[in-house]
């Protein structure tokens, strides 16, 4: 029986989660094997798997995957290195916030993908340009979200620290940062997911390697099986990285769940 907010068992959850994948593939098979859509526009699952196998064994697709992962992580780590400290300072000090917040709020809405042509002019079509797209797409989001999290730190914890003799710097280092570390880790996990979408956009234009590059190439060849395989790989990598991030957070911030 379905009742609001009633939890389901672990086994049931797993079965239900897998079921939808099965339904999805079944519908796809039905549409393609049944001949309801043209083979030119949508490959069937079997062709997709064969194409994928060829990509991996013959066309060095693993190298493309490696490139893409490297770009995402590179741009994302750079963004985090800039954004997390700045966000913490903005959350802690209202003057810093007043200085940066209006600009960052504006910059946040600048679409990273629209920067691609400009960045190609500035940085060429090399790796710098790819990293910059990810960087621009991630940095403003992280800054704002971290600043909001830090600004919402429980006041009574801050007060307790002051009454225990902490000075401003101690409050920053021993309360604001540890109190918000799990939140910041969650923000990074979320934004990493968005960074994945930017990297493909960056690779669609002016690129000679990467998953996005393979997808554009395949479009020219009408190899829809390869395109779908590429998309599925992106999804899988996203799922795995999300899982790893979650596991790491759970390990680092055990006090939250204790």
């Amino acid at each position, binding site marked *: 029986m379905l009742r609001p907010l009633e939890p389901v068992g672990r086994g049931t959850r797993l079965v239900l989660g897998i079921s939808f994948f099965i339904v999805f593939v079944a519908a796809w098979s039905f549409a393609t094997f049944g001949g309801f859509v043209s083979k030119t526009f949508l490959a069937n699952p079997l062709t997709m798997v064969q194409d994928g196998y060829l990509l991996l064994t013959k066309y060095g697709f693993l190298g493309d995957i490696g490139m893409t992962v490297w770009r995402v992580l590179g741009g994302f780590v750079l963004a985090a290195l800039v954004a997390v400290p700045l966000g913490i300072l903005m959350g802690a000090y209202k003057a810093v916030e007043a200085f940066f917040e209006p600009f960052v709020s504006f910059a946040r809405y600048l679409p990273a993908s629209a920067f691609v042509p400009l960045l190609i002019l500035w940085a060429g079509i090399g790796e710098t340009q790819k990293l910059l797209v990810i960087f621009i797409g991630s940095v403003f989001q992280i800054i704002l979200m971290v600043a909001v999290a830090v600004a919402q730190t429980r006041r009574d914890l801050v007060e307790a620290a002051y*009454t225990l003799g902490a000075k401003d710097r101690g409050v920053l280092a*021993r309360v604001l940062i540890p*109190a918000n570390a799990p939140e910041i880790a969650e923000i990074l996990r979320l934004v990493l997911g968005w960074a994945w979408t930017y990297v493909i956009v960056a690779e669609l234009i002016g690129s000679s390697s990467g998953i996005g590059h393979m997808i554009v190439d395949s479009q020219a060849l009408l190899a829809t099986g390869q395109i779908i395989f590429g998309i599925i790989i992106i999804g899988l990598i996203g799922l795995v990285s999300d899982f790893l991030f979650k596991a790491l957070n759970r390990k680092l911030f055990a006090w939250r769940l204790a």
Partner: protein
Amino acid sequence: MSQLQITGVGRIFPGVRGGNAVTALQPTDLSIAKNDFITILGPSGCGKSTLLRIVAGLDKPTSGEVLLDGRKIDGPGPDRGVVFQSYTLFPWLTVADNIAFGLKEKGMPEGQRKDIVASYIEKVGLKGFENHFPKQLSGGMQQRTAIARALANDPEILLLDEPFGALDNQTRALMQELLLGIWERERKTVLFVTHDIEEAIFLASRVIVMSARPGRIKADLPVDLPHPRHYTMKTSVAFSDLKARLTEEIRAEAVLAAMDH
């Protein structure tokens, strides 16, 4: 000899969005002797917490000043330990690390820190829970840790703002005995805010009764019950007499406060 001198301390909260300003505390004078246990008793909204926060340095008075050992209070500091009503243990630190927070801030070497932490863990009866996180503790245990955390810093005065307010009656009674036991042994100056009459009498050597809005001191009663005090004392005649008297004082205020809302 008075250790804490409160002179003409008043607090007016400015009106929000054009509303009327609220006088939380009328200019108040109070002088507290060293090693005294003072309870401030009053209905909610009588400004007792405001007064405590001003002494703690967490709020600034609109008028008047507070002197601790002759020095003017201007902001919070480790010379005044505070235990709050809400659970304010740092959730990312273990019990032991919470208690060591202030000592670490002072830059005390680890060996010395460990000894002090161990002694306070013993005093508040939390042996075996040193490495637990606050989330794993009951409310009473969290407040015991908070008391240990404040005391480990060796403050001049201990300020408690309804620290047992969120606990059930049985736990509350045990906590009162624990706190009193520590005070009887260590004799710190304590300022304890509560709305519970029995609690105010049982703990105090002097009860200050505050009136409803605007808050001011209405009565100042010494409690001459002998130490060490045992919970059975709560049923003694002397205790009952005091309780009856304070109940009258408080009742009038509670009625006024209720009409106010």
